């Protein structure tokens, strides 16, 4: 798929995100919007995925994921972007996005395997756990002789969790070189700017010191840069080191009044704000809202 098409899908995913959180008046639009370009680049172009469809017309999802790339979302609160991406990619009906955070839904506030939503391989939301799970899945791939890759996205606020650093030392120690971890550097968390709440300081130096091959994507909301960065990361795999991408994004990217602050981390837009947001997110009309 061409980058122009990815950009078009990204606009649609952003429309889904603001409509989903508006519909249930809860959820996390800020980080979801910031990571949209990454999700679309991964799922529509860069990841090798099983495309086989079941009788219902949706991708037949296999928990074991043998023979395909795997993705783990550690910062589970940005579930809106995950759900929209999976639905748009063909894992389930986009109409199901309307059930987000509502009773009896497979689209729980934070992702879970418990409701058997295709595309989800572990529950996340309690922060700091995803990288460990990704390492385990990568080690299973190695044991199975499966050459495909494992991706894991974390938040920058999440780097304050101790378990992240247990995992950070384990991956280089076991030479988990089929793993590409990504940190969403949006510099914001619930209580304010990350630098003020609990300064991560130099994540690049930290991960390098732990033994990772660290690279940066300077504008994580520029599709060309995201795609080029992911291509480069894949070239760096298989060389004895895990890969870390520091992905600089803007929280709320795509909706001007949600950008540049932590205020939209976990707040839903009201009716007028939804209207204003959707006016800024215009597709050429080839895809369409759920």
């Amino acid at each position: 798929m061409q980058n122009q098409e990815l950009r078009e899908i990204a606009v649609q995913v952003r429309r889904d995100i603001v409509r989903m959180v508006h519909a249930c008046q809860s959820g996390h639009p800020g980080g979801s919007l910031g990571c949209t370009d990454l999700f679309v680049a991964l799922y529509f172009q860069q990841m090798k995925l099983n495309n086989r469809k079941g009788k219902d017309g949706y991708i037949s999802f296999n928990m074991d994921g043998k023979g395909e790339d795997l993705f783990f979302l550690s910062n589970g609160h940005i579930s809106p972007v995950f759900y929209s991406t999976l639905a748009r990619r063909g894992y389930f009906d986009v109409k199901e996005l309307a059930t987000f955070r509502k009773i009896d839904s497979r689209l729980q506030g934070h992702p879970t395997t418990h409701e058997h939503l295709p595309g989800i391989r572990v529950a996340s939301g309690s922060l700091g756990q995803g990288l460990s799970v990704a390492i385990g899945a990568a080690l299973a791939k190695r044991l199975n002789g499966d050459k495909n890759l494992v991706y894991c996205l974390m938040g920058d606020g999440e780097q304050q969790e101790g378990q992240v650093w247990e995992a950070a030392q384990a991956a280089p120690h076991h030479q988990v070189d089929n793993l590409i971890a990504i940190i969403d550097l949006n510099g914001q968390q619930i209580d304010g700017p990350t630098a003020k709440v609990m300064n991560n300081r130099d994540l690049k130096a930290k991960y390098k010191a732990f033994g990772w091959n660290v690279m940066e994507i300077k504008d994580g909301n520029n599709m060309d840069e995201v795609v080029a960065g992911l291509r480069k990361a894949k070239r760096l795999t298989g060389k004895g080191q895990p890969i870390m991408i520091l992905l600089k994004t803007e929280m709320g990217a795509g909706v001007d009044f949600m950008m540049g602050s932590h205020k939209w981390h976990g707040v839903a837009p009201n009716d007028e704000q939804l209207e204003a947001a959707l006016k800024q997110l215009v597709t050429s009309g080839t895809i369409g809202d759920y």
Partner: protein
Amino acid sequence: MTKYTFTEKKDTRSGFGAGMTELGRTNPNVVTLCADLVGSLKIDTFIKENPERFIQCGIAEANMIGVAAGLTIGGKIPFATTFANFGSSRVYDQIRQSVAYSDKNVKIAVSHAGLTLGEDGATHQILEDLAMMRAMPNMTVINPCDFNQTKAATIAAANWKGPIYLRFGRPVVPVFTAPDQKFEIGKAWMVNEGKDVSIIATGHLVWEAIQAAEILEAQGISAEIVNIHTIKPLDEKAILMSVRKTKCVVTCEEHQANGGLGDAVAQTLVKNFLAPQEYVAVNDSFGESGTPAQLMEKYGLSAKNIVDKALKAIQRKQ
């Protein structure tokens, strides 16, 4: 009563090690993880024979639980091993989210549970783990009683689909169950049939229960002994069948009275059949340093305590 004798004493953790050795040879999907306690968990042979299927995690238990969860994605059957304290309370949220809620086929196999860890003292003597693990949805909880039962439980755990908390201990204790026994998860073992009192015991307390029943027999009292090795799912049928017959019960566990086997049995009785119940368990306190025997005596977990509680339970029947 049924006579139980033993020719040797062994630690239950060595039963786990023997089970892992066998699984290493028979099940290529079994992977072992350990947090810097290989010698204590008796998994040296598994590691020697299957070095590629062992993952040393260092002193980082939270990460170990997550890595184990990840290994199941790809069809592996990971056994995450450490001391009971570090495999339960220290990593409760990791087990809850990444394992139990995520339906991952992870076996958490932990040694040095309870007071009989001994000299290391209360920091390491977890006495709340059964309560924590029982409370967790989707978790199976097993606490075997001797070398042979632990070995059998380990092999059964690998064949069971779903998360398991398998708890065993450090000291050598009599080996009195059959070698190569069939172990059925969730199915109680009738150790001895009796009619005056039910002694329902788990783990190291099963041997104490047998000793107690012999003392009671000398006093003309017929004690039934039921071994509950699987705390969850609980064999309610076996418990009710026994207590309906004897009309009173003593529960015995190397654990806090709060939330353990005793409370699980009480929950069953209160819903189905009211009967006097006495607890042989730690009474809401931490342990301390000492030899296992000294600690079991000081904290009221010996055969003598079971006898006293049995007499009390029988008295309360009137």
